[in-house]
């Protein structure tokens, strides 16, 4: 037994040496190759930035016809003289990733306010089990505050969610069944059931396949009742705690969704759920002292870029409307 313990001790020494070797040699390259998110997200964070903007593609996605191609973040920055808003937005990210990015912001930065995007679509199964999630989670592993060799070991031993396509779809299907809701007088109680019937009835009632598919996407992306157990809610809670710890003011802004298209394709029940969820978030986080800017309904159908999938990609008019609402709320608060 003593022989074994002495070898374990020797192994520990070897590991400490290897940690130093790794940190000095391969770690910088691994961060660059495996963790673009941290590399690219934190690069724009200059010393003088007093505000940070965290979001996903809604921030910078433009329409081909846009003459003003500024991102939402830039528009906010332009409306707040005397402040510098650093753009930390990255495609497909969500509250879990925002937390890791924020956690990696050096103490030397002078950040006072964190503007955080709340995308209601990110709370449902299709996004939670999206195939973009695995690469994001890999990057999150490297963003942990832990010894470099340990983080690389987590990557090597696949300590992040990874699924085959079959497994992923099974998870999405199971998740849709758990997206439950209760609307008085409405026959469906979960997203899977509603989605199935929508497709059946939509195609029966003369909707084109594309429109029926889009209606189904809306149901899968928004038909749910948010509660404390949603993983994204838990991540937002972590963000609030992190902001408190670091003395930052959190500002959550709820992205507008295409209510016109949702209403015409699916019906008022989905809008009710959407509004209920936005209200849930607003009430929950306002009670925690967070400023919540609920932008639901401020962008109309014509300002949305995508026609065949529910996204929060706006043209310049839409981006401006969102930026104006956030800037106005920040001005009011100051």
């Amino acid at each position, binding site marked *: 037994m003593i022989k074994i313990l002495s070898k374990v001790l020797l192994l520990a020494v070897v590991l400490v040496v290897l940690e130093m070797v790794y940190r000095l040699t391969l770690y910088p390259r691994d961060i660059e190759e495996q963790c673009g998110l941290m590399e690219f997200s934190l690069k724009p964070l200059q010393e003088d930035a007093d505000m940070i903007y965290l979001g996903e593609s809604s921030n910078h996605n433009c329409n081909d016809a846009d003459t003003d191609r500024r991102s939402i973040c830039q528009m906010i920055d332009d409306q707040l003289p005397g402040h510098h808003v650093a753009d930390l937005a990255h495609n497909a990210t969500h509250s879990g990733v925002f937390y890791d990015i924020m956690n990696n912001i050096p103490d030397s930065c002078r950040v006072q306010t964190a503007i955080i995007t709340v995308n209601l679509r990110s709370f449902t199964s299709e996004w939670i089990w999206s195939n973009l999630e695995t690469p994001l989670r890999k990057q999150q592993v490297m963003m942990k505050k832990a010894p470099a060799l340990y983080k690389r070991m987590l990557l*090597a031993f696949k300590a992040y969610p990874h699924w085959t396509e079959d497994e992923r779809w099974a998870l999405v299907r199971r998740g849709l069944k758990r997206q439950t809701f209760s609307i008085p007088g409405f026959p469906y109680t979960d997203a899977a059931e509603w989605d199935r019937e929508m497709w059946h009835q939509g195609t029966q009632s003369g909707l084109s396949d594309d429109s029926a598919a889009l209606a189904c996407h809306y149901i899968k992306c928004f038909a749910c009742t948010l509660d404390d157990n949603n993983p994204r809610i838990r991540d937002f809670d972590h963000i609030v705690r992190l902001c408190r710890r670091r003395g930052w003011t959190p500002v959550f802004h709820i992205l507008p969704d295409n209510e016109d298209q949702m209403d015409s394709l699916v019906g008022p029940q989905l809008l009710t759920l959407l509004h209920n969820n936005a209200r849930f978030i607003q009430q929950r986080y306002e009670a925690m002292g967070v400023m919540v800017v609920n932008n639901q309904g401020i962008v109309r159908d014509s300002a949305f870029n995508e026609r065949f999938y529910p996204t929060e990609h706006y043209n310049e008019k839409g981006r401006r409307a969102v930026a104006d609402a956030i800037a106005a709320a920040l001005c009011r608060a100051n």
Partner: protein
Amino acid sequence: MLFNSIEFLLFFPTVTLLFYLLPHRFRWMLLLAASCFFYMWFIPKYIFILLITILIDFSAGILIERWADAPAKKRTCLIVSIVSTCLVLFIFKYLNFCSANLVALAQRFGWTHPTKVLNIILPIGLSFHTFQSLSYVIEVYRGNQAAERHFGYYSLYVMFYPQLVTGPIERPQNLLRQLHEEKHLQYENIASGLRLILFGMFLKMVVADNLGVYVDQIYEHPELYGRGDLLLGMVFYSFQIYGDFFGYSTIALGCALTMGFTITDNFRTPYLSGSVREFWRRWHISLSSWFRDYLYIPLGGNRVPLPRWILNTLIVFTVCGIWHGANWTFMLWGFAYGLLLVVEKGLRGIHLFDRITGKVGRAVVQVLNVAKTFVVVTLLWSVFRSPSFADLHNLFAALIDNHGTEHLQVGAVAWVALALFVLSDLLTRHSRFDAWCGRRPAVVRWALYAVLVFAVIAQSSVQNYPFIYFQF
């Protein structure tokens, strides 16, 4: 649970530690529970399929022994057991393939019938534990093994976690006997076991997975690459599949050895074989010996007239091909090996190199034989790797046309890993890695551990490559 997962890094030491802490009479329970947990980590409900196989063969073993004096009953029992165990394998592995081919055949004759495809995922390691279970029943039938009366021990024999999902396919005379023996903590076993686990992880995570990146590029779009790159990709696949499977088997060996169990070596430097016949004595040894003992010899082995021997060889290798998967490419792969063995036997009388004598001359001949065998094996791996005949055709068409303009950008890590793999194969051709390593001075040994640990952690591929043999 995967050997190269973070969960396994917690599971393995916990189980090993508990194994030594518990008194012998409780250890089977621990190992059985751990094996169930290990298996259920993938798809929990599939444990019931395993349970069916276990129940059938456990009961068959007892009945066969009970009817030792009634040959007809005993034989019937064996047949029922084999058929029902194989039926489970057939339903999960071959039913869709058979029905699709039958429908395609019927359509050729103008008869159309809608196909019903079973939407099921193949239970992991089904072919492996089916064969292990069958070997038990057959050995009991032959009188080489007493029927196991303890259901727990028998279940553990089928489910022993280190070799549950990809073998080695164990014989009851080796594993079942050891499961009953009391094991004592021995430093040598722990040290050798951990060495094997580390080396296995290096083979899988550093060699196989890093090569896999380039292999996938080549096999997904062969038309994009020139002949040189295609050949390089094919060679890489030979080492990827070897590293992958040898790696898994080595980890399995190591896990078992830390608890004092010795399981069968599955590989003995197969790419240093001088002939196809020798290759099959060194590659996936537990499977090739299974086919030898339970199919080839019962068919008559080599003590039959030449035409019958040719037929036997072709049957055995074609079945071996099908064992790997329900696909025509696997069947072709197996059949081609059968054919090659026949050709090799035919050429055995021609002694081309008999006049070459002397140490150097014989060494040159040996190197040429090894190279020839490696080329043949590599070509056949491309049949094995191709998902369909169309893909295989594309690969060889691209090889012949040589129109591709893209170049494979192979990183230094892949080259170094491959070089180390080849070197390790050469160094360990006479003894296993753990024994070879144990003979080095402590400083060299620890330097080697440090290099392997560093490589496994810092140079393993970040792509997720499941073990290739999991699909079988």
